[in-house]
Structure formats: C-alpha cells, structure tokens
C-alpha cells in the first residue's frame, strides 16, 4: 500500500470484523519503537522520507532515554487477501514503574505483540507485562526482533519464549525493525490471529478512557477505545464516573497525525477533545457515554494506582512554589499515577510531597518539571509508606521521615514486594548476596534456559527504592533485570536517622532505615555531605543521630583562601566574569541556616552505596560498638 492509497474503512463506519486492536509488549531498547515505525511506514500512512526516527515517542525525554512513557494510539490500514483491515496500534510503556499504564493499554486491546530482542532474550519486566496480558485474555503473538544483528541468538531465544507461553517454536516470528524483514508477516499475523472486537454496535455508547494528554494549544486530548455503540462529533458526551457533561470540540483518530472525524464506532480507537483545560475533568479509567442516550453500566473501572515511593519536591527559589503547583497539575493530567500534596520543610521551605510509582517515575517527573516548566527543584530522598504505632497505641501513616513520631515506638510495619530477577546463571551468587544485604528472603528459582534463571525474592520495598537497581546492574554487568509488585507488609526494626548541620537537624536529610544499617547510613551520609558541601568561612560540623544519640560526625574545615588569582595584565573583565559566574552558581545552592548546600547533597542519600574505604568501615564499627 502506498501513501497515496485511499483508506476505505472510514472512522465511525468501519465494521468491527475488520478491526484489530493490539499493543506491543517489550523491554526498553528491545526495538519496539523501531518496529512500530516500520509498521507505520509499511502501511503507507507515512513515507520513509518523512519518517521521523521513532515517530511514536513524542516527548524529548523519552527519545533521549529510549523509553516510551505515554501510550499513543495509531490507526493503521493493512490489506490481507484484498480486504482492508484497520489496526489500532496502542504503544505501551516498557518500564517496571509503569505497570499501571500498561494495564490501561492492555484493556483497550484484544491482542499483544510480545517483542523480544534476539540478542538478549526476555527480561523480567517484559515477563510480568506478558503475564498481565495473559490475565486480560489477550492473544499473544511472539516476535523476536533484531535478527539482523550478528549477535542474535534467535533459535535459543525462540525456544525460551515458546516454553514460556506454551507455543510452538515455529510460531515465534522473526523480524528486524531496522531492515523491515518480517514486519509485513507480522501485520498479516495480527489480522489472522487477533480476534475482532465483540462490542454491541447498537447499544448506548460506552468508551474507555485509557489515556489523556495535556496539549497547551488544545487542552486535554483524551484517548478512548469505543467498546459499544458509537459517538458522533456533535453529540454531547457524558463522563459516567465524574458525572460531567461536555460538548465535544473534536472527535478523531490518529493516523499518524490527529485527524478529525465525524464519528467513532464500536471497536475503534480514537480521541476526543472537549476543550476543558481543568486537569480534574478527564479521569483515566472513566467511561464516556452519549449524553442523550446514556449507558446503564460503566465499563469495569481501572484500579487507581498506588504510589510506592514518596519524595518531597521543593523549588530552590521558594517564589516558584505556585509555578510548581501549576506544573504538577498539568503533569497530573498526563500521569494518573502522580499524586501530591503541599508540604513544608524547615530546611527547604514550601514544596510538595509527591507519590510515585517508582524511582524512574520520580526521576522522569522531576526532569519534566525542570525541562518543560523551567523549575529548579530539590528532591529529597525517596521514602516508602510506613505504619508506625506508638506505645500509646496510636497509629501513624508515615510517608515522610518528619512524620515519624517521637518517643517510644511499639511497632513499625513496612510494605513488602515480591521481586523477580532474571540473570545469567554466573551471577546467581552475586545476586543472592545483594538481596540478602537488602533483607531479601529467597523464594524459588527457575531456569528459563540453560543459561538464564529467574529468581524470586520477598523484600522490603524500602530496600529497593534506595539504590538496589543500580547495584543489581553493576553486580551483573548490566545483564540482570528486575520486576517487582506489592506483596503485603511486615513489621521491622526501623529507626529514624537524623542529620544535623551545625547542630541543627535538617529535616530533608532524615531517613528511616533498618537498625542494623543505621550506623553505616549515618557514617556514609555525613562523609558524603562533607565531600559535597563546599568549605565555607567557618567550620561546619555534620552529625548523624538516632534520637539524641550521635552516631557519626564529620567536620568541614573552615575555608581559608578563595581565589587569589592575578589579574593577568589587567584582565579585570575576566576576574569580574568569574566572580559573577561563581555568584550564579551560589544562587543555585540552598541556604540551611548559614550554610550553603548544593543541590546534589539532597540526592546524596540515594547513592550512599557500600562502604569500601577503611575509614568508613572503621567509623561504622565504632558507631556500632558504642550502641
């Protein structure tokens, strides 16, 4: 089919038997976007010369990191045996933090393409997304990508996949997104294998909101999957969950740019713009129906995502607080999983305590806040939610160390996760050691293939959000992959470690850690801060304390000399520019009392790592002895 070909199946008038809706499940870097781009090109809706590299990933951050955050839904024509079919391709995120978003995309599909890099094999997160797709009863089409690479081990990984989903090795398709090989077979298979939607075309309209995106020109763009009935472009629509009614400004499909249409019918995927700019007006998981002829029952709703990780976000310049609120409101529209409420820190001023799905989610949100909204932020060390019961029996939910109750504690309950780790077998020992260090309890272990194993652990979530993933990667030369999901809770012996700078407790540095680790945490944080905080005109003591007991201490000696550079041959301009630059740098520091603290110090707690040098080990031992 060429780009000039007229599409016969018109939106709003396409029979469900000609529709196939699918998503692609893949790990980061396994080539999903390349394959998706190739599909767009083969279908003729974009030509090669106008094919932007990785067309579907629209956001800069996604392109840079090679990951997709937001799903997009593209309408793609494909002809088999002279019949034109309409494929709804829904792009899905591939990272562990975005399980929730994947589930929304899955609910809008009848089938899923399982895309696996032929050089690397399946990864832990792909596996959990695959299981989720199977739970949704989706038809799975297994595909190996990157078969053009010399390092591809297609037979080996085809066998691995066949074992996993219980299909024949010959059912595993082999494609190359780069060269295009096998992609048209894949499209044929999508048509033949994936069932057509089975909605009731004559029933009152019901459409599932699976995503919504804020566009600064158009307001909210809401992505929907029509289940039953149809919507016409001029009909008033009703959001069943919120109970609101809107005049739609535009109804349309994406192919591959936004195209307004007169209608959307059962089985089709498209978008609706209502013109509302208020972020709370488009709730993901809600059901849209026709206002004049309302459906009786909403579609089964989505689960609201539960934040797994909390952190404080504070503008360096407190005057930016209202801007931060506005920015979060806008991001929230794109990101149903983000939650936030105002927070005040003695050290950092006004900010928000935010709940995230995981560390990557947190990183992406803060990066978007700084890049898209120009905000200069400090983010505090991440925290998981604890249930702390005091001796008097009162229960506190603690999502922030500053909420940790003073005085005697009866019990602390922390959230647990079930962690699945896939690793080449030679790293089994290192992974076991790492998990043990992180209070993990080993469950079973299975060989996926003679070379690779999947290990199951039960671990405190707090151990994972700290620096577990980085350490896992470094101990396995980057080969291991990790997935985790909630798995109840346990009570644990946890304490709050405070950090004091010049004798003043800095709430932003307080952390809740296991008692066994509190000494090393205290020693390493104080050492790290000593490195990160520049010397100032006076001596700065840095201490770590549990309650009133000091467990570690470092001192930043007073600065004795700053630049005494000669102004070469009267180059006074250079000196002035240097001073001005230095000043600009200082403005990015946070004043804690009278101490200037660089932003990096606030994320230092994320990377306290392991004690390697002698001094650190000695100090940790000394602190433990003193207890």
């Amino acid at each position, binding site marked *: 089919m060429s780009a000039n070909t007229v599409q016969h199946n018109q939106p709003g008038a396409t029979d469900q038997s000609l529709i196939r809706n699918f998503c692609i499940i893949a790990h980061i870097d396994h080539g999903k976007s390349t394959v998706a781009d190739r599909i767009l090109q083969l279908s003729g809706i974009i030509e090669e010369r106008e094919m932007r590299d990785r067309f579907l990933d629209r956001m800069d951050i996604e392109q840079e990191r090679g990951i997709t955050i937001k799903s997009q839904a593209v309408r793609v024509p494909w002809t088999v045996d002279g019949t034109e079919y309409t494929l709804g391709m829904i792009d899905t995120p591939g990272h562990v933090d975005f399980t929730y978003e994947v589930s929304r995309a899955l609910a809008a599909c009848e089938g899923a393409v399982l895309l696996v890099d032929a050089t690397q094999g399946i990864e832990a997160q792909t596996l959990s997304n695959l299981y989720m797709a199977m739970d949704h009863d989706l038809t799975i089409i297994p595909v190996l990508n990157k078969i053009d690479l010399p390092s591809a081990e297609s037979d080996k990984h085809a066998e691995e996949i066949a074992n996993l989903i219980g299909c024949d090795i010959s059912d595993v398709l082999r494609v190359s997104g780069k060269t295009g090989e096998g992609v048209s077979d894949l499209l044929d298979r999508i048509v033949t294998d994936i069932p057509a939607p089975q909605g009731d075309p004559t029933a009152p309209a019901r459409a599932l909101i699976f995503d919504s995106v804020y566009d600064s020109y158009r307001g909210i763009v809401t992505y929907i999957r029509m289940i039953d009935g149809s919507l016409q472009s001029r009909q008033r629509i009703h959001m069943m969950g919120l109970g609101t009614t809107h005049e739609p400004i535009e109804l349309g499909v994406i192919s591959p740019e936004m195209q307004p249409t007169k209608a959307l019918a059962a089985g089709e995927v498209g978008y609706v713009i209502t013109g509302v700019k208020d972020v709370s007006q488009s709730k993901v998981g809600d059901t849209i129906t026709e206002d004049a002829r309302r459906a009786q029952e909403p579609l089964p709703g989505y689960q609201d995502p539960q934040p797994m990780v909390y952190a404080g976000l504070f503008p360096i310049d407190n005057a930016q607080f209202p801007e931060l609120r506005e920015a979060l409101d806008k991001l929230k529209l794109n990101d149903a999983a983000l939650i936030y409420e105002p927070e005040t820190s003695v050290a950092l001023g006004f900010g928000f305590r935010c709940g995230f799905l995981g560390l990557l989610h947190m990183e992406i949100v803060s990066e978007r806040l700084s890049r898209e909204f120009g905000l200069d932020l400090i983010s505090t060390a991440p925290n998981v939610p604890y249930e702390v019961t005091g001796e008097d029996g009162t229960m506190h939910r603690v999502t922030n160390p500053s909420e940790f109750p003073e005085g005697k504690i009866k019990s602390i309950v922390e959230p647990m996760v079930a962690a699945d780790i896939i690793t080449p077998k030679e790293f089994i020992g290192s992974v076991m050691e790492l998990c043990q260090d992180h209070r993990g309890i080993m469950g079973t272990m299975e060989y996926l293939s003679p070379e690779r194993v999947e290990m199951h652990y039960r671990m405190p979530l707090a151990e994972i959000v700290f620096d577990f993933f980085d350490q896992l990667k470094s101990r396995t030369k980057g080969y291991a992959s990790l997935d985790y999901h909630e798995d109840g809770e346990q009570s644990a012996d946890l304490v709050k470690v405070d950090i004091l700078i010049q004798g003043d407790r800095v709430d932003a540095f307080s952390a809740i850690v296991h008692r066994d680790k509190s000494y090393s945490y205290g020693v390493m944080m104080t050492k790290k801060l000593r490195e990160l905080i520049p010397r100032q005109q006076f001596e700065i003591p840095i201490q770590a304390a549990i309650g009133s007991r000091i467990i570690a201490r470092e001192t930043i000696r007073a*600065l004795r*000399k700053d630049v005494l550079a000669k102004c070469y041959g009267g180059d006074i301009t250079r000196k002035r520019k240097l001073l001005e630059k230095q000043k600009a740098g200082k403005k990015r520091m946070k004043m804690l009392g009278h101490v200037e603290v660089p932003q990096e110090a606030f994320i230092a707690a994320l990377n306290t790592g392991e004690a390697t040098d002698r001094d650190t080990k000695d100090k940790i031992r000394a602190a433990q002895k003193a207890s």
Partner: protein
Amino acid sequence: MPFSVYIHVPFCMRRCGYCDFNTYTALDLGGGASRATFAQVALRDMQLHRRWQEEQGIAVGPVDTVFFGGGTPTLLPVDDLISLLGGVRSIWGLKPDAEVTTEANPDTIDADGLARLADGGFTRVSFGMQSAVPHVLRTLDRTHTPANVEACVRGARRAGLRHSVDLIYGTPGESLDDWRTSVQAALDLGVEHISAYALAIEPTTKMGRLIRQGKLPKPDDDDEANKYEIVDSMLEQTGLSWYEVSNWAVPGQESQHNLNYWRNSDWAGIGPGAHGHYRWTDAHGEIHDWRGSEVLHPRPWAVQVAQGKLPVASQEWLDDHAHAEEVAMLGLRIREGLSVQDLEEAAGRVLPQQVIARLVHDDLVTVRVTDTPIRPEVLALHQAQDKHVSMSQTEYGAAASFSTSTSSKPHPFAPDNSAIAQQGYDIRLVPTRKGRLLNDTVIDQVCQAVGLW
C-alpha cells in the same frame, strides 16, 4: 586621572610549564610579526591608539607610568625597549617623575643592559625570580639560578633602577620550608618590592595536564593559605608592607603602575592580547567605561596594525552595574581600601552598617575613617535611605543577613553610617589578612549588600 601605558612583549625563549600567558617562542611568526619588527609595529599601534582616543574624545595627559610586560620584554634588544619608550614620550608625553618599569628574566639581561635601560629613561625593573629553591625552579621549568638573580639585583641597584622580584608559591612539591627559604632569599637581596603570587593551575598548560594525569600533586588551598601567611609575616617584619593582595613594598616604593589598575585608572594596552581601560565623560556629560584587549596572536595583530586598524579583538562597554561591581572588586584588593561612598554612589544604594559590622566582626575588614568629605549626592542617598530604614527596619535587616557566624553580640567597632554621614567624612574598608585570603568572599558580601548580586 592618571594615565598609564602597558606594552606587552609576547616572546619567550621557551614556555614554562605553568604559564598560559600570551607568549610565543618562535623568532618569526610570519605576516610581519617577529621579534625584530615588534618595536616598529608596536610604535604604529601606539599612534593608532592615540587617534582612537581623539576620535572618542578621551583626553589623556602626559603618561604617569609605563610598564613592559610579557612574555619576556628583555628578549628584545635594549635599544628597541628604549625606542618604544621614546614612542610613548613623543605620542603622549611623559611626566618628569614617571615610573617606567620592565619585567626581566634574570637569564636575559645583565648589568650592562640594565645600565643602558636606566640611561634610556627606565626607572624600575621587576625580576621573575619565582623561587630560590632549585627543585622548585625545575618544576616551574625556570632555567635561571639564584646567582643570576643576585647579579641582576646588584646590577639594577648600581644602575639606579628601583627593583622588585616576583615569587610564586604553591608549586607542586614545594614545602613550607622551601617557601621560607625563597622569601628569605628575596629579602636577603635587599629589594624594596616583592610580588608573591599563588600558582594558578591553568588547564591548558603542561603543568595542568600533568596534574590532571596525576603525575604532579594538585596545589592545596590550605597550603597556599599557610604560605601566604608566611610571606606576609616575613615581609611585614622586614619593613615591606602589603599594598595590594599580592604585592608588598617599603613604603614609597609601591608600583604606581600596578596601583593604577586597582584604582581603576586609564591605561592603553599596546601589543598582542594587551588589555586597556578608559573611563571618561564626553562633551554631553555622558560617562563611558570601556575595557578592551588587542588581538592575541602577533601575526593578525601585526597585519591589522599594518592596515591602519586599531587591533582590538574584544571590548566591553561597562554599564553602571558592572562598574559598581568593579569598584567593589578593585577597592577591596588594596590597602587604600574600598571607598564606601564611591561604592554607594556607583551602586545607588547605601552599604548597611550591619554589614560593615559583620565584616569587621568576622575579621575580614577594618574600617578607616578618611578626611575626604562625603559628596552631596551620596549624602542625599543616605538621607533617603535613612527614611526608608526607619520605615521598614526588619525588611532591611533581612537584606543584610549573611552566611557568616551569626552571633549578634555587639562588636567594639560597629560604625554607624549615619553618624559618619553627619560627620561628613568617607570611610574605607580595608581587608585584613583573612579578608585578603578570602577576598572573593568579601567582594561577594559587599556586592550583595548593595544589591548588586
């Protein structure tokens, strides 16, 4: 306003490993730029400067000071140096008591050459001694010996030239005793002027590379602070007083040329990469403040001069804000100190007395009351501000809070600006030794206090 001329001679026998100055070792750089033709081109350059000054309406009188720097000016024949000085005399005129200095590498000049310089009108010579310790000199790639330096100083004295030596501290491998040895050696020479500079590691130099590769230890700020305190104590005890952060002299022997830089005077910068500065009021009463520097490489420099074009490569017209920053930055480097009324006038804001008290309390500056009356426009500023202060004392106090130890105990010297204003005399802030070592900190606090940063 005094007027100075700086002439940059961009030639060296070899490049020292720490040096990133604009200097070249080739004899002939092409395009008419060579050691042999340098003086001719530089003379033409002076004429171009003079023409430019006239076009701009900058009236500069006879020259107060001339300074030949480099590079190694003494690589030029003595006659060339003298004819360049002749050029200055014929183009701008030279005051009878003008100070005329050349830098000299002890390797490249002898007693005879020094005598001829004195006869030719030079009054002062500054020797690049750097150190008296052989292993330190080696690390610095310096080829002269302590004996050379001694011969040179003797020669200068015999010729009637004022003389100075430059020292460098903080060279990798230099111990505190090495440094004491060097300072003592300089004192033993009987010089009346010593400059001591902390070694600045420039990333583009050989030394910068060696340090990056870990082949040489990195200079340490604390070590350099110790060495600064050593040289300051040893020199002050011997009667050489500091008059600029890195310069000490027997009173009366200060380098006037050097001071003119810090007093923000005017000077013409002649030669490749040379910087110049003018601040003047034009016929319409408008103030202009110009800093610029000449083309760096001698060849394009010579080509432009040959074409009759003033070889300026970069220039900056300073606005009020930049000027005020410079007033603070320059004034706080010298013993004369920062004139508070100059700063206040430039910044358009009063320096709050709490800030002065804090700086004094932190032992960063001392306050000197002068007998210079406060100008009416600055008095007006104080009166306006006093009103403001009494209206919103707290807001004002907040603006003056700093990153220093906060104790609010009263200091014996807590000057009251308005009291001084009533007395009608300007005060000056003079950096203490600690304030010299932490000069950037002092500048930072002062600039912040008058709303510049």
